[in-house]
Structures are given as C-alpha cells and as structure tokens.
C-alpha cells in the first residue's frame, strides 16, 4: 500500500502573496517524483500542504484519496523531512531518532542501523552536529519512518558528495524493498535524475510541467562529436548548453531530432543522447523564456 497525492484547484496565500495559484496535480502511488523549481517557486509550500503542515487558502488536498488535514490515519503515514529536520535541538541524536516511534510504522532498528552506517554520534546533542550530520539525521529519520508518502525537501544540504550518493542509494534500496511514494525536492537535479520516474516543475506558484522522465528527455537531445559536425547538425535548433574540449563539442538542444536529422548527424559522426534534465529545467524556467 502506498499513497497517492492530489491537489485540486489549490491556492495558498501568505498575506497578499500567492505562493501557489490554482494548482491541480495528481501523483500516482508507488513512484519516485522529482519536484523541481527555482527558489520561491512554491516547492516547500506544496510539500507543506501534502503533509498537513499548512492548510490551503482554497482548494482541496487529498492523500490516498482522503483529506489530509487532521486525518490521523493519513498523517501518521506521511513524512515530510525538511532541511535540517524538525528536532528539539537540546535532545541527543538518539532521543531525536526515538521520537520517530510516534509513528506506528517507524522502524527503530533500521534507524539505528542507518545511524551507525552514516556515523551519527548517538550521544551528542542535535545542536552540536555539523550541518551535514544534521541533514543525515533528518534523512535517517525520514527513511526509517517507513511512511507511505515520504517527502524530502532539500534534505541533502550540507551532505558531502559520498554521503549524498549513499543516501540516494539507500533511498532506492528502501523503495525497492517497500514500494511507496517518494517526492524529492532538490536543486541538485543531475544527481537525482536517474532515480526519478516522474518530474513536476513548479514555476512561480504554478505547475509548469508534469511528465515522466522519458518525456522530458524526449523534449531535447544532446549532440556530441566533432565541433564542425555538431555545429552543422544544430543549425536551426535552440541550443540550451554548450561544452567544448579540444575538437570535440557537446551541445544540448531544446527540441527532439526527427529521423532524417538523426541519420545525417550520425553519418557525420555525431552521437545523439537524451537531454540532461538540469539543462532542460534551466531552459524551461528561464525568465526570458517564460516572460518573467
């Protein structure tokens, strides 16, 4: 059993400012979603609604087809892990982990195993942890919650690259072992791209795109090969990103190539690959393009 999540005509205002504007979104159960958006796009606000941290100004928020607000059967199975976690800073790491036992699904043994693996000092106080270790503690608590809908909001901040890699792998292993719904909100798009099944892009409080990863990758292409051949193949295409090393050039274009173009490019020695999600994200949310 894993939870679906949906927002219907949801608006959320902070005073006079609309953080989310008339959003409708449906997330199927049992998938890993990426929630992308520029700073202030409304990602955290959206996650706060799904976890009943906040109430919408208008509209309906459903998790597992049930209203999430004050619904004990739902919220006990929903976990939002915010950057740095939500802890009493004067608690020890062990106590901060143990409070997770408020969830019936919480797996304390798994949490302690992860704490050992990620070298969390159980006897140290939370406020004595480095930013990276604090993020690890939050991630450990999120994984061990064994919730049906788990959301990680920039939880990787402060983690070093090996720790982030280990966290993503543990997340995937846990997901494969126990299918549930996961939402990853992050700016490190390329790092998580391989783990995602669907991607939601928020832009200025609205859903800009919601597609599976393959659909995003089909929205563009990466051309790599001899610089002249690449330039020739890219004539008339919108170039999103460009890299050059000696005589070899790699460009990302914002449109898929048809069969004839692919054939000509291949004949000229140009390799065609899927577009990088991060390049596409940058392109899609470019203020010049979106009229901001």
């Amino acid at each position: 059993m894993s939870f679906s999540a949906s927002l219907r005509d949801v608006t959320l205002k902070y005073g006079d400012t609309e953080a989310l504007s008339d959003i409708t979104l449906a997330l199927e159960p049992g998938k890993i979603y990426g929630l992308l958006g520029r700073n202030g796009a409304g990602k955290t606000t959206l996650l706060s609604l799904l976890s009943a941290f906040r109430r919408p100004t208008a509209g309906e928020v459903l998790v597992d087809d049930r209203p999430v607000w004050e619904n004990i059967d739902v919220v006990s199975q929903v976990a939002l892990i915010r950057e740095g976690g939500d802890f009493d800073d004067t608690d020890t790491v062990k106590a901060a982990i143990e409070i997770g036992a408020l969830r019936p699904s919480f797996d304390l043994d798994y949490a302690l195993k992860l704490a050992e693996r990620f070298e969390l000092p159980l006897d140290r106080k939370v406020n004595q942890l480095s930013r990276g270790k604090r993020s690890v503690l939050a991630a450990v608590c999120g994984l061990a919650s064994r919730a049906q809908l788990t959301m990680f909001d920039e939880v990787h901040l402060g983690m070093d690259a090996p720790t982030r890699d280990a966290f993503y792998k543990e997340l995937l292993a846990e997901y494969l072992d126990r299918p549930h719904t996961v939402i990853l909100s992050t700016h490190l798009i390329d790092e998580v791209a391989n783990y995602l099944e669907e991607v939601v892009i928020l832009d200025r409080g609205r859903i800009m795109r919601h597609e599976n990863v393959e659909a995003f990758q089909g929205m563009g292409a990466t051309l790599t090969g001899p610089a002249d051949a690449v330039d020739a193949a890219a004539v008339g295409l919108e170039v999103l990103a460009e890299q050059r090393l000696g005589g070899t050039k790699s460009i990302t274009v914002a449109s898929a190539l048809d069969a004839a173009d692919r054939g000509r490019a291949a004949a000229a020695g140009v390799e065609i690959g899927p577009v990088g999600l991060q390049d596409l994200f940058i392109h899609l949310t470019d203020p010049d393009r979106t009229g901001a």
Partner: protein
Amino acid sequence: MSKTATLATRRYTLGLALFGESVKYFAAWILAAIILAAVVPLIVSQWRSIDISAWYLAANVGKYLAAIIAGGYLYTLLPILVAQGMTRRETAVSMGIFGLLWSLFLGTIALVGFLGEHALYGVFDWTQAPQQGEEYDLVLGSFGQALDFAAIYPLSYLLYCAGGALAGAAIYRSDTGWLILALVVPIGFAVDDLLSSADTWGPAFVVRFITGPLEDLGTWPAVVIALAVIAIGAWGTRRIILNTPIRAKQA
C-alpha cells in the same frame, strides 16, 4: 517513546512520557529548591529570628516555572510532533495530560513542602508566615492552617500552566502572538489572587493593579472561577493549535 506507539493511544502515552521525562529533567532543580528552602532559614537564623516562609518563595517560583514550561513545550513540540505525523488534536490532548499531571505533581510537592516547613519551623519555634505586608501578616499557626493555605496550589499551578500554554500557542501562531500576554498575565494574577489568601506573588507594578478587589469572594467561588478560567484557557489553546500552520524553517 522508545516503543512504537499505536495510533489510538499515542496521544495519552506521549502525555505520560512528557510528564515522566520532565520529572526526571527537573528533579535536580526541585531537589535544590527543597534543600535551599530548608537550609537558608537555618543559616539566616544565626543572625535573626525567622518569621517568613522560605517555602512560600520556592512554591511561587514554581508557578512561573509551570507557565514557562507549558508554553515552552508547546512552542517547541508542536512542529516536531506534526512532523512526526501527529495531528494537532492529538498534540492538544498530550499537552493537556501533561499539564494536568505536572500541576498535580508540583502542587503535591508544594503542599507537602508547606507541611514539612511547618514541622521544621515548629522545632525551632520560628514563625511560618507566607506574607508580611504593609496591610497584614499571614501566619500559618497550625498544620491545619498550612494545609488550608497550600491546598489550592495544584489548581494554581494548573492556572499558570493554562496561561503559559495559551501564550506559547499564540506566540507560535503569530509574530504578534505575545500581545496575548496583556490579557493572560493580569487575568492569571487576578484569579491566583482570588484563590490564595496571600497576595499574588509577582512584579509589584503589575500585581498592585489586579489584586484586592475580589479577595473576599470565598474559597469555593474562587475555585469555580479558577476552573472556568482554566477551561477557557485550555479551550483557547486548543483552538489556536488546531488552526496553526507549521512555520517555515529559517535558512
């Protein structure tokens, strides 16, 4: 909360656990207050006769402690508990159970402390006077008088707990929530003044405006009013909690 909770009972087990952990955490403070209240008069008696209740001071500090703990717990724990998948209703129940037990606990210590102090003062022939004021002295001349005087303390602590919780909830709810103190403090002091045969113990610039006018109301009407004010405070706290969004984390 070392064992995994069940949904039906976790609000109660959390309330009990909060109480148990608080007793452990504050045990040293309470013990220090008990020792100080006994030792300081012994020391002072070397130079002058003792004609004031030291325990009265400790017991009244406990009222402020009760308010600060209730407000502080609520302010700190609300986001943590919601993040752990608890509803706000459950949180309100847990805090209510904690407040009741904590008030009863402190109140019992206060009551036993007054009786113990009366016995100690009797040994040395000192005067156990909670109040020596410009208007009148309040002397506890017998165990019965000490018991009568101290019996309202559990209710008094509950009053301060309710006030602290209401303020804590309001301050978490809104940046201007502290303004509720302008209501909570005078009402709390006034009702405490009704309950106690001594004047309310607090800052003189506040207390002098709210003590006195209803002092002769009698014990039971005062208890009824206190219970009503506590119930309103608890209801208000719950109302605030139920609609409180969890604050965004500061970068």
